[in-house]
């Protein structure tokens, strides 16, 4: 048991610590909170700086506009497809691979691991990769978003350390005495014991697919295939940059009005899936997965 002997200095420390952490939380949450209240306020009120702590001139026009915006919904649907299919493919490739490479008795396992880790620090670059994707005829298809990123080596390292730490050799030997082979052992014993790992890996990969736009930007040409982030880029960034670049003020203003109406709602609608997903998986971050990574 910990000694309960709290000194005065410790009490002061605790108080300051809690106050600072509350301040940090406010700083982190405010931009998100602002987007939320601004999405329910009229663009005019936001523009006049009246939306600081509470929404002003409550309205749902922004969300109505989003509901009827074809580009956003096509992007949303595309992103869901890319994220679900991409994450499934990531898991199917990464997890069994990590399991195989975690087995000490697997000859050449160490060599394969080194070859894979090497690619984290030495890479051909985006230009040759683009040619590979092009050569394989994957341009402008969903495969260009899935295949070149099947295994993220960093995730592989984490998954491998997890298996090394959580699937003891005794367990394997007992299962093998019962007539299990590696395949059956993986699916019937190792995988059911690794729910935390699967959850965390799914989250890591899904966040990449959902939030990234680089692959889509370079590999997709057809606007109907654009994921949500590319649509958002047009709404949130390019309109602002047009202003910054000092383009013709009136033509910008028309576009600006529409953009102002739906941009905050778009921020909320696009961020919600990830923000409600991660807290469920969060408890595994430290205990389940990262400990292995720190030690490994």
């Amino acid at each position: 048991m910990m000694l309960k002997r709290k000194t005065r200095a410790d009490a002061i420390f605790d108080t300051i610590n809690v106050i600072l952490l509350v301040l940090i939380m406010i700083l982190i949450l405010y931009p998100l909170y602002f987007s939320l209240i601004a999405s329910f306020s009229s663009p005019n009120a936001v523009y006049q700086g009246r939306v600081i702590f509470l929404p002003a001139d409550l309205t749902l026009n922004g969300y109505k506009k989003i509901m009827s915006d074809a580009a956003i919904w096509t992007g949303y649907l595309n992103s869901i497809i890319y994220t679900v299919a991409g994450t499934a493919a990531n898991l199917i490739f990464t997890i069994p691979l990590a399991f195989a490479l975690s087995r000490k008795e697997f000859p050449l396992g160490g060599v394969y691991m080194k070859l894979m880790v090497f690619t984290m620090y030495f890479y051909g670059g985006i230009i040759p990769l683009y040619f590979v994707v092009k050569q394989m005829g994957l341009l402008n298809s969903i495969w260009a978003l899935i295949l070149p990123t099947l295994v993220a080596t960093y995730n592989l390292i984490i998954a491998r350390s997890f298996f090394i730490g959580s699937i003891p050799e005794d367990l394997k030997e007992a299962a093998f005495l019962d007539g299990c082979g590696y395949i059956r052992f993986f699916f019937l014993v190792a995988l059911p014991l690794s729910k935390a790992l699967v959850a965390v890996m799914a989250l890591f990969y899904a966040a990449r697919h959902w939030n990234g736009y680089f692959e889509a930007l370079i590999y997709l040409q057809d606007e109907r295939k654009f994921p949500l982030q590319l649509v958002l880029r047009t709404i949130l960034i390019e309109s602002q940059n047009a202003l910054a670049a000092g383009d013709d003020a009136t033509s910008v203003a028309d576009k600006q009005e529409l953009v102002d109406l739906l941009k905050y709602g778009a921020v909320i609608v696009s961020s919600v899936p990830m923000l409600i997903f991660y807290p469920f998986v969060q408890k595994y971050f430290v205990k389940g997965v990262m400990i292995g990574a720190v030690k490994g």
Partner: protein
Amino acid sequence: MKQAVEKSFRKRFKETRALYWFVVPSLIFYILFKYYPIYGSQIAFRDYSPYLGFWNSPWVGLAHFQRFFDSPDFWNIIRNTLAINLANLLFGFPFPIILAIMLNQLTNQKFKKVVQTVTYAPYFISVVVMVGMLYTMLSPYSGVINVIIKAFGGEPVYFMAERSLYIPIFVISDIWQKCGWNAVVYIAALSSVSAELHEAATVDGANRLHRIWHIDLPCILPTIITMLILSAGQLLTLGFEKSYLMQNSINLGISEVISTYTYKRGLQGGDFSYASAIEMFQSAINFLILVLVNQISKKLGDTALW
């Protein structure tokens, strides 16, 4: 227990054959999408011509590297990439460590969980949304910061078009987005610090700050150094996505970095060999720095990647 007689390689290979079902698909992936592009980066030594094709373009040796070194853009984009990364490292690196230590001192587990949930949140927000929020919050007309400035009678600042503010905005928004997430590794490291050490120190009259300084920090030092070496190996790499979004015609002199430059010159401009030469230069320098820092760390202490 270790087996008395080491099994022969052949026997082990035979026994573990089934594992190749798990390994071969990924090996094909690594060969196709990691190693084949490394082989393909020889385009940097050729002069790519769409008519002759990738593998038939003529060799030109180091001409594209020379062209890059002689280009007026060279120092500019190297300096920008290094400056942003160094600022990120200098100011961004300590925050996750401090946050992890603060979290570790909390006794109320519920509050700790709330703080963690909140600080992780920005990591799951897309860069597009994050930069979009920067534009709106820093807008000279309606942005909150400028509303406050104006309320105190000041002149509104056009933050996103101010060259000198580019790096501070980049670094601060990076801290906002990644501080909580990057703390995870240190929280994990701190959770394995032995409680007995703390109890013994408490009995000896050490207060919180003493124990953080003399127990927690030394215990997580290897993790800190590992993370530092890994960051150092990325000094010439700055992700494309955020830089590209934050760029506009006014700040281009400070915001153009290697990744955005190669994208524009290569994939947009069609100067593939030139762009590939720049990427190869970047990859080689990164690798050199990584090896160097690792060697230094090995000499100074005992933490090293290999």
